[in-house]
């Protein structure tokens, strides 16, 4: 478990060592995305809220998954990482944990920023709306991170990874909202769906990290 922490710290150090432009892009993204939670806090949560949060989770987690999984393969450093004493499970879990935690951090920032927008007056359902949105966001981030880990091995081109992740989220949301037309479903069911899908992807990713494909060449 301590090696998972080491991988996590390594990824965090790599992220914080990035160029300033990276932080600007994420700051702008968080600012823009914080509008809807504020809107919901003022006017009441709507159907779009879940999709809004899920979309953000996909964008953020795909982006981070790309940088920690795919970039490592492109630079060739994955081979060294796998042969320097870390267990392969620690590498997958540490990187996935990093993507989930950083995505979660951005989600929390987004929620907090939504409180600061000078639009309308806050309603009593604010906390419930934010928590519900954050829950979905976390589920989406976990699914995006785990799917990113798996896709980074199976897709020879990293370019299609964000689109594949987006497709996955649309698929899960469609399943949920389709079923919701016939039976009464709470939003936590959608959260459970994303967690279940994320767990399945993570299990497959751990298995595939023990295979040969993890060092296969990447198309740029």
């Amino acid at each position, binding site marked *: 478990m301590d*090696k998972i922490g080491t991988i996590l710290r390594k990824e965090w150090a790599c992220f914080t*060592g990035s160029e300033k432009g990276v932080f600007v892009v994420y700051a702008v993204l968080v600012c823009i995305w914080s509008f809807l939670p504020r809107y919901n806090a003022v006017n009441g949560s709507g159907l779009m809220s879940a999709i809004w949060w899920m979309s953000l989770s996909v964008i953020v987690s795909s982006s981070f998954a790309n940088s920690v999984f795919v970039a490592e393969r492109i*630079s*060739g*450093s994955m081979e060294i990482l796998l042969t*320097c004493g870390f267990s392969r499970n620690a590498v997958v879990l540490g990187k996935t944990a990093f993507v989930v935690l950083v995505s979660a951090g951005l989600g929390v920032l987004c929620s907090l920023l939504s409180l600061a927008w000078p639009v309308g007056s806050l309603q009593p359902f604010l906390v419930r709306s934010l928590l519900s949105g954050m829950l979905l966001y976390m589920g989406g981030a976990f699914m995006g991170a785990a799917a990113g880990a798996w896709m980074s091995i199976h897709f020879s081109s990293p370019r299609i990874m964000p689109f594949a992740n987006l497709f996955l989220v649309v698929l899960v949301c469609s399943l949920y909202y389709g079923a919701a037309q016939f039976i009464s479903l709470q939003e936590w069911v959608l959260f459970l769906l994303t967690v279940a899908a994320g767990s399945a992807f993570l299990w497959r990713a751990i298995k595939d990290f*023990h295979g*040969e494909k993890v060092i296969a060449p990447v198309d740029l």
Partner: protein
Amino acid sequence: MNVANSIFGMGAGTPPVSWSHCAHYNLPQPRGSITHFYMLMPHTTVQVEGLYKSFGTHAIFENAGLVLESGTVFGLVGLNGSGKTTFIRLLLGLLKPSGGVARVLGFDPWIHKPEYYRRLGVILEHDGFAGNLTVARNLRLFADAKGIPWKQVEAYVDEHWNTTFIHGELRKAATKVKYLSRGQKMQCGICRAFLSWPDAYFFDEPTVALDVDAIDHFYSLVRTARSRGATVLISSHQLPAIEELCDGVGMLHNRRISIITTGGRTKTGSWLVRCASDEKYRTIIEEACGFPAEHYNNAWHFPVARPEAVIPAMISALVQAGCEISEVCPDSDSIKDRMRIISKDAKGS
């Protein structure tokens, strides 16, 4: 069949290549006792037997073998695409053998045990450093992976890298790796590989982009590792480095590893027998000398530890098998000459 072959159970096929397995010739009697041999045999670090590897229908290795013992430096040469990097990746557990056995330090590399990797020093094609991190931060990461205390890393750098830029980097931790030159990154990779002096080293083109001082420094580190009883496998196209540094040299050719020279405890010479390329002659030669033989330039080439004893018996066996021999002599071709001949043969065929 010699003792080494019976030990490894390779009587009918290609014997595993061992540049020092003939050490048992110098052992006290009784020879041939398996238990006795095992007790006195130098510690085997790398043991590859009957290795097969293919990508789809394209075979890279067929029945390849190699045995390396502790305290040796072995060079692996070959033409482009002959499988040098693939061989190292197989030993590192990055690729799975299609058949055969590969063991390093008693581990099956494909099991991916962290304990195995902590006993290895590795240099691969890419430096493997996180570009956004400083040299010191990168080294700390790899030290953590191997469970090496930071103080030990500092002591190691102080002792062995005090004349290089790495020493300064460790103290001020200023430069991100992405701003280093290719040669400096390679030096950092070498520094990482020798951290805590592992038991086995696998180097793929370790001297690429190094300046003369860095190359000399690398040589001295390899020699220190050897004196500590480690096994070093170097794959390179830099033939002067191979010839200067290695006790034994093998060439990857025709999906097998042919031994060119051996040294150390079982110094061998390289010989050639000029005759037809019949496979039955290969069997006779390999059984006699204990190493794989390679046919090119109209002759069988093979290493032999005690030519005065082996060659007459081999010639006698070949003649009895109907072989018409036109020449038997020590093989004076350098590694470079051999590679040129093999390259020419390959283009011709």
